[in-house]
């Protein structure tokens, strides 16, 4: 029974929540920066620029992928607030997913870091990640 519970735990699909856009208090956005030879880049916002066309009504993979990342960011904010230590936060699946995304987006670098800011509150930081060294440390057990 506990194995079944663990399997179903990630699924909020079976218990739908229909509170769409009920509270627009926090508008989280993902920023990242990288370091190479001891020089950090400026913070860059993770965003996908697309020009929407009628065809996107049928297939809109890039925007949906961006919304997927955004949902991971929102989930991280919720789950991070429930953890006791930084180690637990780093171990979160959504934290690792975001880190993988940054690494995949930025390509090979010495260090990676991301932060989540609130666009609705003068870009104040909601969460700043540790500096992560190598892509190897971001491997998630599948």
């Amino acid at each position, binding site marked *: 029974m506990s194995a079944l519970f663990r399997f179903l735990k990630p699924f909020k699909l*079976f218990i739908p929540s*229909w509170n769409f856009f009920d509270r627009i208090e926090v508008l989280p956005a993902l920023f990242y920066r990288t370091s190479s030879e001891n020089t950090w880049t400026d913070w860059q916002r993770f*965003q996908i620029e*697309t020009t929407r066309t009628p065809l996107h009504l049928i297939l809109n993979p890039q925007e949906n992928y961006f919304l997927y990342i955004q949902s991971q960011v929102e989930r991280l904010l919720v789950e991070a607030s429930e953890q006791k230590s930084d180690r637990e936060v780093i171990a979160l699946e959504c934290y690792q997913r975001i880190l993988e995304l940054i690494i995949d987006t930025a390509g090979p670098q010495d260090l990676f870091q991301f932060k989540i800011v609130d666009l609705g509150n003068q870009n104040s930081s909601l969460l700043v990640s540790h500096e992560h060294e190598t892509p190897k440390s971001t491997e998630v057990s599948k």
Partner: protein
Amino acid sequence: MTWDLTLALHLTKTFLAVTILLQSIEFLFLKAQLSRQKIWIPNLVRLLIVAGTLLVTILWKDTSHFYTAAWFSIWILTIWILRKLGGHFNGGSDSMTMVILTSLTLALLIPIEIVQVGLVWYICIQTLFSYFIAGISKLKEADWRNGLALKKLLLLSNYNVPPVIKSLTRDHYFIKTLSWLVILFELSAPLTLIHPELASAFVLIAVTFHFSNFLILGLNRFVWAWMASYPSLIYCAYYVAKNFN
């Protein structure tokens, strides 16, 4: 036109197959981005099964055990894929897809009329909840009632909102009216069960609403996922009219 259970289930199967087919094709375009999630093979298998299932559905050849097995496979593969993605890929549209897919699969596995009627009602009630609960949640928020929440959503959020829509947010009365229209539309959902014609009118407005959400926020998956729920909604309106009026 009278909606019977066979027609409601047939249309649900058709629209749901289209929905899942499009979702599967979208994943093909994201092969590089989602390579770590290892959904490539299950998604490809799902794509092939759902394409065949759609064809069989359109041809009204959907009575064999193979057909039921195909939907069961789609259900298993969808759960597998979403689990690999951490529970969901696109929030509400995944939830609605799973509500309909689970109900439809059960309806095929248990071909007893009363069970099937119950499952169609389950889809209908979840569809009504999807609007009504969203409406109640917004009504409770002062920022939704005064238009500020919608303004923030359109101006500051991460959605790729077209500039022409952003410029409209400068008009406070317009944005406040729009907020109230959204709230009232969502709260009106349960009224659809009063009469089938009300249900049809609601569906027409709902499709327009979701299409607007696609144009403004890019939420294309919601259009298709909710489309698959409307046959149940209309069937239940007819059911109420026939049995209670």
